[in-house]
């Protein structure tokens, strides 16, 4: 177990710049999840930590020691690949023990470590099989087993579950969480999956185009996204955005929509009167309400029952707008509905896309 420090790390592939100065610190035993759209540089960052990719600029420290120039074998880190990358000519036991064997560990120690890992991952009956005779989920578990037998300083996971079907993914997610609880190893986990990120992470790192957008606990990112990108990326279905102008009338702050409706805000913001803003609200926070002064009329385009709840695809002034509700009555919603935005759940972003700073304390 170890701490990992990433300081102003940049990466160029030739003339293409992929990471533009990433800073990140992991404490001993922390589980950090990296999320971001495809191509934003998550795998590149992970591979640099593992030593598979050179660091163009900046510094990576493991346990306080600079490792930029160290070969992967000298970093004592384990990585689980998306493709599993099992050695096809070795059976499961040999796959798991390879790292220990080439480090010339004692035979009893190897046997103990392998059987220990096999028991944790329920691989005992498969130890003599070759990878080609395993199912996807079993291969995944072998890949995890290979990582844990060595008891490395840290684990790196690059979308380890993305090749599995939904049910298996759920199951493995819980297993990874259990494993982390038992081993307490410092881990960095890359995923596209919202739920994986929310459920596994101590902290989430949201990346976009090679820049870290926000670092925080899952709920921090959900409740107080730092900018439009994070607001739109975290949460499913995604947050709705409306453009508006900031107004203070009669002592209360509000956002004026283009059609003239004034949406009340729960606090004042450090914004100029009339400043262009983007108003954000999550589909699950929108209220279906009877018509009132601050409610909006929207047309119903599509109704999607998910079983658990219902997603309404609405048109609000011709723009798409989603609502998520648990109320089954929405299944029969008419051609139009009225929606209202509870002020505590509104997010306000300034012209540059940054979260607007509120003047009073509150959830806004």
């Amino acid at each position: 177990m170890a701490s990992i420090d990433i300081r102003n790390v940049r990466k160029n592939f030739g003339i293409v710049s992929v990471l533009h100065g990433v800073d990140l610190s992991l404490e001993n035993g922390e589980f950090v999840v990296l999320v971001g759209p495809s191509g934003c540089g998550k795998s590149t960052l992970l591979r640099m930590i593992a030593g598979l990719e050179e660091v163009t600029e900046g510094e990576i420290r493991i346990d306080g020691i600079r490792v930029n120039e160290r070969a992967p074998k000298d970093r004592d880190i384990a990585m689980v690949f998306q493709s599993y990358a099992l050695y096809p000519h070795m059976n499961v036991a040999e796959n798991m023990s390879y790292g220990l064997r080439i480090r010339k560990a004692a035979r009893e120690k190897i046997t103990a470590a392998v059987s220990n890992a096999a028991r944790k991952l329920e691989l005992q009956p498969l130890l003599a099989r070759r990878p080609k005779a395993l199912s996807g989920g079993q291969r995944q578990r072998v890949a995890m087993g290979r990582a844990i037998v060595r008891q490395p300083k840290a684990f790196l996971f690059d979308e380890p579950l993305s090749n599995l079907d939904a049910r298996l993914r759920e199951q493995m997610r819980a297993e990874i969480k259990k494993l982390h609880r038992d081993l307490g190893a410092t881990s960095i986990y890359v995923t596209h999956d919202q739920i994986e990120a929310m459920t596994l992470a101590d902290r989430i790192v949201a990346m976009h185009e090679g820049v870290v957008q926000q670092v925080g606990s899952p709920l921090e990112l959900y409740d107080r996204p730092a900018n439009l990108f994070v607001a739109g990326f975290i949460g499913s279905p995604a947050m709705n955005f409306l453009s508006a102008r900031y107004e203070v009338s009669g002592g209360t702050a509000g956002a004026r929509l283009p059609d003239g409706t004034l949406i009340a805000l729960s606090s004042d913001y450090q914004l100029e009167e009339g400043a262009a803003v983007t108003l954000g609200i999550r589909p699950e926070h929108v209220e279906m309400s009877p018509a009132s002064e601050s409610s909006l009329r929207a047309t119903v385009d599509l109704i999607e029952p998910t079983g658990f709840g219902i997603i309404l695809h609405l048109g609000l002034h011709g723009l798409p707008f989603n609502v998520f509700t648990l109320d089954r009555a929405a299944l029969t919603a008419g051609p139009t509905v009225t929606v209202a935005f509870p002020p505590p759940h509104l997010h306000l972003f300034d012209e540059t896309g940054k979260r607007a700073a509120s003047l009073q304390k509150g959830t806004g």
Partner: protein
Amino acid sequence: MNRYSTFGTALHRLAILCYVVFALFPLFWLLKVSVTPNDLLYSEGVRMWPSRMSFEHFRFVLAHSAFPVFFRNSMIVAGATAVIVTLLASLSGYALSRFTFRGKYWLVALMLLTQMFPLVMLVAPIFKMLSPLGLTNSLTGLVVVYTAFNIPFATFLMQSFFDGIPKELEEAAKIDGATQFMAFRQIVLPLTLPGIAATLGFVFTAAWSELLFALMLISGNSAATFPVGLLTFVSKFSVDFGQMMAAGVLALIPACLFFLFIQRYLVQGLTAGAVKG
């Protein structure tokens, strides 16, 4: 199985049969002539098998001709060439497949260039180069020349096999604690056995049957290889077909044994299960 697919299968098999017969018939004829006694060779007309079989040609070739010497020379030359080329080609093929380095593009272009000229053009210059080095009329000289001319193609062949092995396997090995060379030897090489077998086989047969350089660089029987040796059965006035064919049949044996030996590595699917997708 419906009628259409039965018909399709039959047609398919028939096509394969036609091809196999066409390809193997010369070999069959070789065998047939080699066991036909001289007195029946021209007297029986065209028959699929002689009425009386004899091994007199084999006996003569083995006991009274220089054939055993040719055979030994060929074994040395082809074997050494195959081993050396495969060794070098697996190293260079790995480099081309995995590393980016300055001049890589030009190196590949240069290697391709060497494959573009008819070898006949090069016989004289090569003779001129080898003769002061004392490498004409020697097996070593032949091995050097064959190695040089086989390496480019063998390199590309090996490169394509290395390209087929997921890079992540090596990366996983490196993270597990292996050096680049250990990852190559313990992970990549075992998975490239089919490629190595194919390259060995290809180079061995190429060197075994090479005639042009063997003819031009070697004079006299002591260093002659088997293809050159075959020509000794052609005398000024006649061709001793029986003996020539018997020698030919004997020459097929090592190639057959060789492929029998490597065929279990030629099977596909050695990397199955490594990566998903």
